[in-house]
């Protein structure tokens, strides 16, 4: 087109038409190139997208798989926890039954004529037995709290009465150590609040018990106040005791945590009390903490939601009737264990009552069908027919006087109690029981007999 020697010679200069044509041709080719590139890039994008999608699907599959594995592991763990709870309940039951014998017999032994030396031995057996029982109860309690099996009451609670009772219960221990034990409940705290009186008392008893244990001179005081416009109840137990080293404060509320291992040798205790308190307070929707100076005393404070409640209705008139005589009460003791039979019979004799004996549920039903009994003291686990089945059978008997049935159970689990209630029993007596508890049940039964005539 142009000669190489003079490419820009005027003669060869392209005219305008040619410029335009060349240009159009160039632009057309450039466009085609661009289109090809675009097509290529689009394909690349599409493939990248496909890879991303496959990757996302793979990730989702992995997440799904891991979730399933985790769920499975969680199920295995739940099952293990449940088995652990069951095991604890069974073991504690198995320990409570012989403990019932040990404590009961010791109690009876202490009621007999003893030399000073014998009395001191028997007292040691009794106190050691009680410590062992307390430990079993704590372990069982904590295991129930941990498995979420504890349902807290929301009935009206008289906080002043709870605190008063705690002070009264602990005053003996305080006096022994020459400590001042005081309590005060601020005037603005309502008389009735919704809550669980038993559990609230348990928390206070634990904290006050600890405070007394670790205080050698001075005082322990309980303060209850209403805070944050009355929305929270703040309870504190303050002592002038040996205090807690700062580095130990954090672990205090963990299980089996004591300030140091020598503590358990010097002061006793299981190290479960504060763990139980923490679970209970948290179960009530509250928090618990401690402020302490080493050798400068400790203050344990817990806060729980304060929900005002109406006063409960009085319904105790039956209890205040003239004192019934227990000797008139027709009692049937249903118990397969020989030691327990002997123990219960001895206790009944001490209280001036007497009872017939049935060895198992079937014998019990046969005897009750005569209609002569006011009260059945019913063991639960027995051969042939257990206590729950026997109770159901009795409740289906018609045309006889239905006796009041009190379960004698070493099973402290709420679910077992519920089974007793559902079968038609009226009350429980947890083994090992004290003479006073038994007396209480007998008197209730006697008073009802009087009312019914």
């Amino acid at each position, binding site marked *: *087109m*142009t000669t190489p020697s003079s490419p820009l010679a005027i003669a060869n200069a*392209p005219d305008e038409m040619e410029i335009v044509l060349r240009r159009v041709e160039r632009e057309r080719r450039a466009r085609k190139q661009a289109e090809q590139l675009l097509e290529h890039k689009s394909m690349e994008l599409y493939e990248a997208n496909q890879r991303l999608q496959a990757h996302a699907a793979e990730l989702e599959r992995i997440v799904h798989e891991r979730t399933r594995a985790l769920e499975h592991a969680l199920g295995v763990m739940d099952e293990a926890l449940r088995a652990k709870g069951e095991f604890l309940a069974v073991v504690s039951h198995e320990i409570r039954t012989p403990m019932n014998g040990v404590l009961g017999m010791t109690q009876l032994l202490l009621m007999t004529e003893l030399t000073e030396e014998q009395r001191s031995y028997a007292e040691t057996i009794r106190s050691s037995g009680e410590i062992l029982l307390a430990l079993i109860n704590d372990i069982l309690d904590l295991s129930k709290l941990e498995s979420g099996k504890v349902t807290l009451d929301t009935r009206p609670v008289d906080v002043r009465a709870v605190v008063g009772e705690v002070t009264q219960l602990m005053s003996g221990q305080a006096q022994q150590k020459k400590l001042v034990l005081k309590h005060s409940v601020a005037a603005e705290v309502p008389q009735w609040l919704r809550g669980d009186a038993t559990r609230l008392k348990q928390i206070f008893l634990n904290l006050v018990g600890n405070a007394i244990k670790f205080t050698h001179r001075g005082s322990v005081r309980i303060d209850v106040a209403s805070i944050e416009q009355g929305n929270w109840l703040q309870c504190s137990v303050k002592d002038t005791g040996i205090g807690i080293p700062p580095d130990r404060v954090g672990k205090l509320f963990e299980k089996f945590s004591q300030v140091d291992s020598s503590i358990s040798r010097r002061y006793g205790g299981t190290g479960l009390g504060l763990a139980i308190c923490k679970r209970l307070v948290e179960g009530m929707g509250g928090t618990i903490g401690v402020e302490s100076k080493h050798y400068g005393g400790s203050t344990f404070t817990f806060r729980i939601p304060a929900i005002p409640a109406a006063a409960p209705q009085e319904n105790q008139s039956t209890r205040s009737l003239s004192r019934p005589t227990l000797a008139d009460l027709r009692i049937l003791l249903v118990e397969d264990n020989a030691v327990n039979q002997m123990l219960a019979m001895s206790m009944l004799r001490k209280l001036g009552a007497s009872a017939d004996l049935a060895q198992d549920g079937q014998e019990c039903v046969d005897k009750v069908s005569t209609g002569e009994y006011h009260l059945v003291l019913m063991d639960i686990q027995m051969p042939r027919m257990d206590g729950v089945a026997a109770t159901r059978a009795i409740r289906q008997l018609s045309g006889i006087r239905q006796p009041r049935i009190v379960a004698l159970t070493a099973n402290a689990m709420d679910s077992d109690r519920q089974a007793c209630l559902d079968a038609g029993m009226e009350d429980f007596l947890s083994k090992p029981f004290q003479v006073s508890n038994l007396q209480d049940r007998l008197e209730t039964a006697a008073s009802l007999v009087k009312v019914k005539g």
Partner: protein
Amino acid sequence: MKGIIFTEFLEMVEQRFSAQAMEQMIAAAQLPSGGAYTAVGKYDHGEIWRLVCELSKVCDTPVPELFKAYGEYLFSRLASNYAQLLAAMSGSFDVLQSLDGVIHSEVRRLYPDAELPRFDVVERSPSRMVLVYSSKRHFADLAEGLIRGSGRHFKESIVITREQLPSDDGNRVRFTLTLQ
């Protein structure tokens, strides 16, 4: 070499000279691509040499001067296309400092097959910068033009001195920039 180097060059020739001059240059260069370029394409770097050589004949200006002039022009065009990249920079030294680390790594992400020159900053103070340009191609003049363009963009007055360095393959040039 990226197509944008070619398309911008043709634009410049048409603007500064004429459409006719551009056609003559293209025709005289006898290019394998025929001068049909698209900005996103990739072409033999030899074509830009042929074009600049032909332009040099048309306007009677030495090739290195044309490359420098084109570099300045190219920078202003890139600056307006990629304003957001320059927004964070406070001056030419920042741009040059971030060439290898920031700008070229972005370019590579978009065009994995791009052959990019290297700019190693060997010295930097508020008023002086020494950098070494290394490339398989001999485009040190274009690089100098780009540096000038950057100086103009930031309204700086930069004195540039160049020194050829020994190199086994390709081209190594040390640029010393002094801010006046």
